[in-house]
């Protein structure tokens, strides 16, 4: 308790080590030992969690990291005993506050849930009941567990909403979830979680669905509350940056087992498991440019219906030896730092990640010709009909955007959700018609091109979508999907299509026999490769990648990024790479444009923009995005911008960023700043820099 008081008194950054060291001496609030969970499915038994154990101390933030299907969420739901009915806990103890939660009766467990242990879920949009008022949803646990009267509960609810940083709490109590933004809803979820002063808060991917600036706000809030109130927090995430910035201890999970655990510094600085090391080198980083190729882990995580014998990572491991067919135990080789690898001691000497990853990427194949794509004052307004009695409103999705892309170049387009970046991508492809402006593709204006002209152009322009699950027709085989554009555009005679499909499959790193498979038989990463092969089938010159890697796990994401970069070099492609993940954009782009509420606020070569961001919004975005390195993270100043994206229906007057801008002056509320060239090719739309 003493440490938490200290933590509250001091500024936010730089105090993690001391609080952690002190916390460890106390009694742990949660001790999980030897936990195994399995699911019965029609295909067989899935061992989702195997022999997992970790401890959590008061005031400590413990991260569980892993890719999808690694069992991290299942292990957390087991603590709450909220598993589906098909789940079966086969062994282990979950001792919370001296009691084994797995041995409690349902009624005793109900009294623990929401009272002593609470949980926050991934999707703030669906985690609150849409038909009940916010107030009732916050007060429910107060009524049930603390037997408060309505007046007491209301007072406490107002107190909680204030605590989580929601303004005007009293009127919020009367609102419904759909009236709040995603960030606000997650704050409400935290308020519900904190209602009864729990000892342990479990957060399952609490910010995955949120934008990066909102993510930073929410995580800062959780970290701050955990310190001030001495609450232990388990945070489940796939985002290594978050772990580096916020976690005291890290448990890395792979295929149902913990493969490495230790303090954040130890795991990030001196990883002793090949998977943990691989993950750290596979993730694109804000502080590394495109010169360095990502060193990825080959292959995909195993199917837990038929896991490999011995070490689960063996089939993907570069250092696998015969002994690895025997399951390695989790060994503590320095105090508090464990790894499950037979070769963890020698790993440091045999693995030279830095040297290996200096394989650079060739320079841009720009033959000095003009840009392949030029956007001039492109504008897209969506009219929203207000029904019978209301005037029409305009959503200014894209507002006067001017950009250009050279052959063989990648332009990264970053921004938070709702900023208009995807709309811009659709307008470029003419999936939506621009309201105004010019789209010059190889010199010809597409803005008013007819259907015939567009058909010809579509051969040269392709798109890769975000969701590899829904963007492939489930009733067509992979071969048919890839062949379709070739047949539509009559690029090849029929007999040759089959060979071309096989060629394209091998180009994107798939096997020829996969042409006969259906999309559901492939993994997410493989499906995204199929999407890429489909785009390549017509020999395009330009591809719009709309969040093309966002839905993929870290190790798979790295593979796809490398593939895209390799194809660019080989085929001289140009990309418009639309993404919200700054590190990915940084890694893949030559030039970057930052978009906010339909406008480009900053536009510069990638290295220049990330080294020397000028616009306050770009700076805020960069500050909010965590770097997967605790040493760097803990020395970085944290400037988290407040507020949220305004509605594009009612953009603020003047500079659209002014309500959230730390530099805003009176003039910003009146005049719309134009893009100015501050350095060579470095354009900024701000009058105050």
């Amino acid at each position, binding site marked *: 308790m003493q440490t938490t008081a200290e933590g509250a008194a001091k500024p936010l950054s730089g105090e993690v080590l001391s609080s952690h060291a002190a916390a460890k001496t106390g009694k742990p609030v949660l001790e999980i030992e030897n936990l195994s969970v399995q699911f019965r499915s029609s295909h067989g038994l899935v061992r989702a969690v195997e022999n997992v154990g970790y401890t959590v101390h008061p005031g400590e933030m413990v991260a569980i990291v892993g890719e999808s299907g690694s069992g991290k969420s299942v292990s957390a739901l087991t603590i709450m005993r909220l598993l589906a009915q098909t789940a079966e806990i086969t062994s282990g103890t979950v001792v919370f506050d001296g009691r084994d939660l797995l041995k409690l009766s349902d009624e005793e467990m*109900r009294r623990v849930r929401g009272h002593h242990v609470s949980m926050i879920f991934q*999707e703030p949009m669906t*985690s609150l009941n849409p*038909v009940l008022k916010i107030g009732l949803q916050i007060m*429910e646990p107060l009524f*049930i567990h603390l037997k408060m009267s309505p007046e007491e509960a209301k007072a406490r609810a107002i107190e909680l909403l204030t605590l989580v940083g929601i303004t005007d709490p009293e009127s919020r109590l009367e609102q419904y979830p759909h009236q709040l933004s995603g960030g606000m809803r997650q704050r409400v979820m935290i308020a519900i979680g904190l209602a009864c002063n729990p000892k342990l808060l479990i957060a399952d991917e609490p910010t995955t669905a949120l934008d990066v600036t909102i993510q930073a706000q929410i995580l800062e809030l959780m970290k701050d509350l955990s310190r001030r109130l001495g609450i232990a927090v388990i945070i489940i995430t796939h985002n290594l940056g978050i772990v580096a910035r916020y976690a005291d201890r890290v448990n890395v999970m792979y295929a149902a087992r913990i493969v490495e655990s230790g303090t954040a510094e130890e795991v990030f600085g001196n990883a002793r498991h090949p998977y943990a090391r691989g993950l750290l080198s596979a993730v694109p980083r804000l502080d590394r440019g495109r010169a360095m190729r990502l060193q990825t882990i080959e292959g995909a995580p195993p199917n837990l219906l038929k896991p490999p014998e011995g070490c689960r990572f063996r089939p993907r491991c570069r250092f696998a030896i015969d002994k690895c067919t025997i399951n390695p135990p989790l060994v503590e080789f320095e105090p508090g730092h464990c790894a499950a690898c037979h070769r963890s001691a020698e790993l440091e000497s045999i693995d030279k990640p830095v040297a290996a990853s200096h394989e650079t990427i060739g320079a841009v194949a720009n033959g000095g010709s003009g840009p392949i794509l030029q956007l001039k004052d492109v504008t897209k307004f969506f009219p929203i009909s207000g029904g*019978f009695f209301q005037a029409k409103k305009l959503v200014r999705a894209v507002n006067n955007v001017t950009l250009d892309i050279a052959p063989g170049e990648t332009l990264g387009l970053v921004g938070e959700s709702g900023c208009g970046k995807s709309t811009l991508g659709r307008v470029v492809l003419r999936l939506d018609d621009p309201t105004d402006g010019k789209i010059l593709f190889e010199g010809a204006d597409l803005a008013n091109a007819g259907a015939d002209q567009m058909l010809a152009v579509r051969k040269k322009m392709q798109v890769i979508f975000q969701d590899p699950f829904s963007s492939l027709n489930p009733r067509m085989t992979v071969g048919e999907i890839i062949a379709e554009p070739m047949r539509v555009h009559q690029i090849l005679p029929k007999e040759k299509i089959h060979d071309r499909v096989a060629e394209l499959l091998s180009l994107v790193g798939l096997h020829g026999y996969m042409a006969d498979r259906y999309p559901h038989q492939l993994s997410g990463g493989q499906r995204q490769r199929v999407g890429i092969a489909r785009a390549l089938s017509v020999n395009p010159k330009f591809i719009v990648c709309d969040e093309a890697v966002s839905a993929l796990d870290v190790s798979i994401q790295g593979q796809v990024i490398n593939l895209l970069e390799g194809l660019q070099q080989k085929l001289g492609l140009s990309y418009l790479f639309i993404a919200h993940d700054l590190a990915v954009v940084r890694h893949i782009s030559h030039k970057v444009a930052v978009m906010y509420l339909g406008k480009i606020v900053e536009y510069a070569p990638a290295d220049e923009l990330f080294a020397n961001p000028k616009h306050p919004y770009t700076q805020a975005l960069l500050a909010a995005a965590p770097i997967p390195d605790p040493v760097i993270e803990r020395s970085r100043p944290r400037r988290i911008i407040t507020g949220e994206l305004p509605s594009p229906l009612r953009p603020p007057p003047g500079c659209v960023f002014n309500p959230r801008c730390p530099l805003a002056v009176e003039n910003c509320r009146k005049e719309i700043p134009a893009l100015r060239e501050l350095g060579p090719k470095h354009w900024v739309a701000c009058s105050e820099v």
Partner: protein
Amino acid sequence: MLRYVIKRLLLMIPTLFGAAVLIFLLMRTIPGDICYLRLAAGGGSVVQDVLDNCRRELGLDQPMWMQFWTFIKGLITFDFGKSMWTNRPIIDEIALRFQLSLQVAIMATLTAVLIAIPLGTIAAVKQNTWIDYFVRTFTIAGIAMPSFWLGILIILTILVTSKAWFGVPWMPPIRYVPIWQDPWYNLSMLIWPALATGYRYSAVATRMTRSALLEVLREDYVRTARAKGLYEKLVINRHALRNALLPVVTVVGIEFAFLMGGLVVTEQVFNLNGLGKLFVESVLNHDYAMTQFLVMMVVAIFAFTNFVVDICYAWLDPRIRYTR
């Protein structure tokens, strides 16, 4: 909210008008007319003058648009005219039958809802247990069994058991008396058709409740409710059921409107003089005025039920309440 209600009400007008045009034209495309049917149906021959006279009396000699105008004017001024067959005012012909059909519909709906919601809920909560299997069998039977057949079964059972118990066979009364004149007599007559139709109706609604609730129980907010440590009863009743009711309300609304004019065979079985029977008779008789009125009435009932369903939606779901 008020605006939402007004908007919904105004939207009923084009629906009603469209239906009026359609039924007016459809009736006149059927070959033969009421005068011919009335005077020469037996195969006898009629003098043309008599037919013309009859048509003039009923206004069938007027141009089409004029007839349509008379029809629409009647609708707007609530002057629905006379039955072309019996020559009595339509309102008088309808009055008792409407009461009867409305009462059967309401009673059947009550029966259905009272069975469906508890049964559907318990089946969803106890999914894949013997309770669930029982409910599913019960509802499948309800859907498969025609209500008139169930009606015959009910009547036979009443006859047989009353004979066995009291020695005298008892039959439900067949002369309709409004409920406020003799409630006991009235109910003892109408409860049986209400049960017979209500069973099938409840089967549809039960299955809808069950499947909607199963879907809602998988939602994130139900997990949130459990994670808060709420009693399971509260999780179901407050958090899940209210969200699951939306599709159920739709089904109940449509079924109710259907019962108001579509109970032709069941009315026959229970010897009820309801709207369904009148409907069939007036169509067979080419009674334009009566058929047009009945169709318009059923359309109005459907439109109004939909309106009530929309209001229920808004009441159940704040997202609808606030965004419109």
